[in-house]
């Protein structure tokens, strides 16, 4: 457990841009060195609400991309879905405003050493971290296919330059307002088969991740997924963000999704637990 949060830094970062993209806000922060340290899958924890806010906890956001601009400092980008008080506040902040953030936090997507065929599956704003991942995979010589799904077109996050970086992009919406009508899982089996996928990466709501995991098990594929649990601290000190994870020793433990996640192996998650403590969990009684 040495080196928890070992790349993390707290900085006051200026908002460089804030653009509405469909239902989301694409926000860019000037973060300095942090940009170098971030890997696809990591997240950033952001203070919300300003000076005399009643919101005492940070909000976590998956890092969409980072740019190292050398001497002029790095940029970090996120995609915000205005939802409750905190995310709505953040989405309303304009360029020039200074924001307190901590990054990079959490685990990153594992990158295969061989050039493999990877399928990236994102739900809603869950597509955001997959574009950075796609770039890294491509640089390693991997073929990258992508599937993005949401309830409706406004909630599909698929920027142009992101689209260009993948070999194929399939979009699904439940209301059929863009792409195929249905869920991401409706198209996975065909893509996995026809594109001879070796590994699946996913990010989105728990229900979607579970459905994806059922399919990857069916095909016996490696599945790395980024989970989203309610986090009070984001740095491992509060124990609120736990979920049952089976270790290599077969033991189930309540692990923190902020430092042992958000990216975890799909096979290690006890999907059936559904927010209970499964029998046999270490320390359960």
């Amino acid at each position, binding site marked *: *457990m*040495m080196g*928890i*949060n*070992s790349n*993390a830094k*707290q900085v006051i970062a200026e908002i460089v841009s804030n653009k509405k993209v469909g239902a989301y806000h694409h926000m860019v922060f000037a973060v300095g060195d942090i940009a170098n340290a971030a890997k696809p899958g990591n997240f950033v924890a952001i*203070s919300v609400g300003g000076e005399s806010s*009643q*919101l*005492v*906890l*940070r909000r976590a956001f998956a890092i969409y991309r980072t740019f190292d601009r050398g001497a002029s400092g790095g940029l970090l980008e996120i995609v915000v879905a205005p939802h409750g008080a905190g995310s709505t506040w953040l989405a309303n902040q304009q360029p020039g405003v200074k924001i*307190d953030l*901590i990054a990079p936090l959490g685990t990153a997507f594992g990158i295969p050493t061989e050039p493999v065929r990877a399928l990236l599956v994102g739900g809603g704003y869950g597509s955001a971290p997959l574009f950075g991942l796609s770039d890294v995979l491509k640089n390693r010589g991997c073929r990258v296919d992508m599937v993005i799904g949401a309830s409706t077109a406004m909630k599909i996050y698929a920027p142009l330059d992101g689209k260009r970086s993948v070999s194929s992009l399939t979009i699904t919406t439940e209301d059929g307002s863009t792409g195929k009508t249905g869920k991401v899982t409706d198209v996975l089996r065909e893509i996995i088969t026809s594109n001879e996928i070796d590994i699946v990466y996913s990010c989105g709501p728990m229900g979607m991740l579970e459905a994806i995991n059922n399919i990857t098990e069916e095909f016996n594929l490696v599945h790395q997924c980024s989970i989203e*649990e*309610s986090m*009070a*601290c984001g*740095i*491992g*000190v*509060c*124990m*609120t*963000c*736990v*979920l049952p994870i089976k270790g290599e020793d077969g033991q189930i*433990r*309540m692990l923190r999704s902020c*430092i042992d996640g958000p990216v975890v192996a799909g096979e290690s998650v006890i999907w059936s637990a559904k*927010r*209970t*403590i499964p029998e046999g*969990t*270490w*320390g*359960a*009684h």
Partner: protein
Amino acid sequence: MFNFQTTLGQAEFENPIFTASGCAGSGKELSQFFELNQLGAVVTKSIMLKARSGRATPRMAETPSGMLNSIGLQGPGIDLFLENDVPWLRDQGATIVVSIAGESVEDYAVLARKLRAVPGISALEVNISCPNVENRGQVFACHPETARAAIESVRRNIGGELPIIAKLTPDVTSIVEIAKEVVAAGADGLALINTVLGMVIDTNTMRPKLAGKTGGLSGPAIRPIAVRAVYQVHAAMPHVKILGMGGISSGQDAFELILAGASAVSVGTASFGNPMAAMKIKEELRNELISHGFDSLREAVGYAHRSEGGN
């Protein structure tokens, strides 16, 4: 030279800013942000006899200027804790206060015996704000008899060395009554306050938001309750040292608790919003004390109680 030192029982501390139990992980998580030896002490997460998975999730809900938690004392158990966590903290040069919690009076006795010979521990915080399985799950600190029994059990088994700081819940009719009881039972100091029992109902699911239904309220929302508790107890027993906590997020907040009667303060929820909170508070408190003309922390402890004539 400004003197920032403080004492709780026989234990001495370089400065009065501690982490709050359960709000600093194992210490490792925060050590990326500052050196733990800069703290007055690291108070460890309450440790129990056996490993515990804690409660099901969701375990937290944000509330106006605060949050609810129901972690359920997840932890590795005392043996692994002594094997891993304490040596690591010692290596960091951290001053260590170990927090213990039991489900029975006997648990407290065993925990005390396991701890009494461990080197490098400055004090014991005894969390008695937890359910007593032998008494219908009633919280030890809620009743004078059980509060006394738990502390006596520690006192008898700890030997003469380690100061005992009894941590009380504010969810009682009279915290002064409980405080007197645990001091009579052998507590050298008091930690005030633990979280306040609360609940949030999720208006989407229309059920309690936490899996454990109720949870402990912490953060700035409860600060006025903490100040009141510290003030009342200090008024009743000015000689008993108090470790104050509850919603401290600035040096001014810490100063408030010290004026009320705390000799040191713990920073809890504030560290969730800002991992550097304890360091920020330490700096701000020092400035606050100096700008008010104090030469030492000690002079300020309980200063709000001085008679009307005082200046």
